[in-house]
């Protein structure tokens, strides 16, 4: 979990990522000084977003992460009509009209199932680091997982470990479970193509492949997508100028 900032001057001039920590106001200050420099007399127009948006001193306005995220993604890929975002603690689907305006969205932020935290817990159980998860091939044997509750899934994984199911087979099952859940969420919102996959879990190539298979569509990812929310806020600030 981290706080992100983007400085925009027509293109991305600077970006920063700091741990969120305990004191959101302090986090926002340090993020800002790493972007514009400590000695800077005037702060440029500032838009704050995300759960900590009200803790940012000096912000001239706040915009929700849904709107910012959509804006940022459209900057990274202007064709995008549907955004699937799976972050550390929540997941969301945003549907856009041809001009990039948000027309519908759904969010899951009340349950850890299918989020980055879920994957982290399961990977830990299997002695995988997140970097190792990233290198797992999408194809291969799969041990299906029936429970999506983070707590019960862990029990299920432990049972499979005891039965001697290979780690990779299990991990692929976990990724498949996340992909199925994400695909259902996209389908419910109504998929408009092309689909853009963002958030921390979009860094796992095999997950993007599995989601694409579930939805029978091409999935676009972008190395800067973790910054999409902050980027969108910066773009709104730029337009406000």
């Amino acid at each position, binding site marked *: 979990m981290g706080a992100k900032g983007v400085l925009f001057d027509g293109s991305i001039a600077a970006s920063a990522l700091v741990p969120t920590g305990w004191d959101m106001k302090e986090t926002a200050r340090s993020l800002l000084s790493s972007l514009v420099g400590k000695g800077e007399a005037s702060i440029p127009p500032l838009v704050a977003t995300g759960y900590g948006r009200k803790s940012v001193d000096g912000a001239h306005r706040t*915009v929700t992460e849904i709107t910012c995220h959509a804006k940022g993604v459209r900057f990274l890929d202007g064709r995008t009509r549907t955004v699937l975002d799976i972050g550390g603690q929540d997941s969301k689907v945003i549907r856009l009209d041809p001009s990039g*305006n948000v027309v519908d969205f759904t969010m899951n*932020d009340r349950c850890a199932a299918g989020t980055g935290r879920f994957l982290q817990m399961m990977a830990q159980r299997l002695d995988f680091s997140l970097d190792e998860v990233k290198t797992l091939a999408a194809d291969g044997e799969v041990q299906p997982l029936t429970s999506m509750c983070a707590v019960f899934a862990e029990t299920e994984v432990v049972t499979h470990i005891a039965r001697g199911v290979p780690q990779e087979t299990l991990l692929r099952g976990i990724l498949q479970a996340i992909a199925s859940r994400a695909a259902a969420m996209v389908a419910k919102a109504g998929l408009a193509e092309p689909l853009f996959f963002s958030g921390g879990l979009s860094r796992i190539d095999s997950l993007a492949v599995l989601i694409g298979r579930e939805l029978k569509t091409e999935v676009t990812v972008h190395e800067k997508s973790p910054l999409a929310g902050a980027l969108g806020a910066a773009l709104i600030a730029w337009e406000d100028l």
Partner: protein
Amino acid sequence: MRSRPWQGLSVPLSSPGRTSEMGPIAMIVDEVRRHNRDGILEIKEAHERGTPIIGTYCGYMPWEIIDAAGAIAVSLCAKSEEAIPAAEEHLPRNLCPLVKSSYGHALRGTCPYFHFCDLIVAETTCDGKKKMYELMDRIKPVHLVQIPQRPDRPEDFALMKSEFNRVRQRLEDLTGRAITDEALGTSMALRNRERRSLRILWELSRRKNPPLTGCEIQEITDYIQFRFDKEKAIAWLEATTEALSQATPERDLSARPRILVTGCPIGGVMKTLEVLEETGALVVCFENCSGQKESLRPVEEGVDVMDALAEKYLAIGCSVMSPNPHRMEGLKRLIGEYDVDGVVEIVLTACHTYAVEGYSVRELVHSLGKSYLSIETDYSSGDREQLATRMGAFVEMF
């Protein structure tokens, strides 16, 4: 100002909270806030005079039969989170908070209205409620009305009518006196007048710049529900509506996105309205239980009284009905009449019928070219920030 309805409420002139700068609209809202607990005293006094008090939980309850019996119908407590832990001693955790709260209040004796009740008239609406009533019956007698699951066939109508006849009989047994058709006719006319007056109040929100926010409308509607001298309440409501109608609005709400709220009862989740309006929306219409769902259609007068009651109540568009055409028709009509920009559906956690029906509501709203947001929530306050994100993003869409 032509009328000053708050004068009828015998309020001391120097009450705290009132300031001389208050405009007429703010004063009306302020009056309502300071009197919204007066109903408890009215019920206590009626009970002491020997008037039977009938507890109710739902819009399907045939108010006219209770009134014609010379009894008072009172809506029982079901809105607070504090009652839930007690309920979970008997009920499962993953049950609708409204069902749990109703039961918890009854079990712990924390609903003053429940305390004064002689009988509860309840309905087999959702599965959670009907099974909970079996347990509630151990605390206080519950007369359970069997509601048909369809609104459209002759046999559904026949069941509704026979169930209402049973209610009539049960109340006659309780009071020891007959309920005449004439008395029913009088009660029907009275209730229709109340429905009509409420509708006229609500229709103030059809204006481009309505005098009241959605939160305020809800407060006034709630207040009327807990005024038991209906003649007086209607007179007050008519005068208040007239005063609101004449007053120059003190705020400009005309630029806000106009929202219709639908779904589950919202008395226990007023946070959703508060957050929605804090993020910049304006709720102009309520299509849920305490709003237009019950009042949209009056009881037909001048025909057989029991036929008229069965027909009216059967047409309530609750999601327990399958199919549920009356809800969809009502929504379509209200979205047009109130010039709505978006629909927000409030689904209480574990309310299956509204949660599932939400899919069709979303389709309907989208087919009318309007935006739709579904919110699942319970009585806890922990999700205010999450609500603010969803509702904020929804408002940003307009």
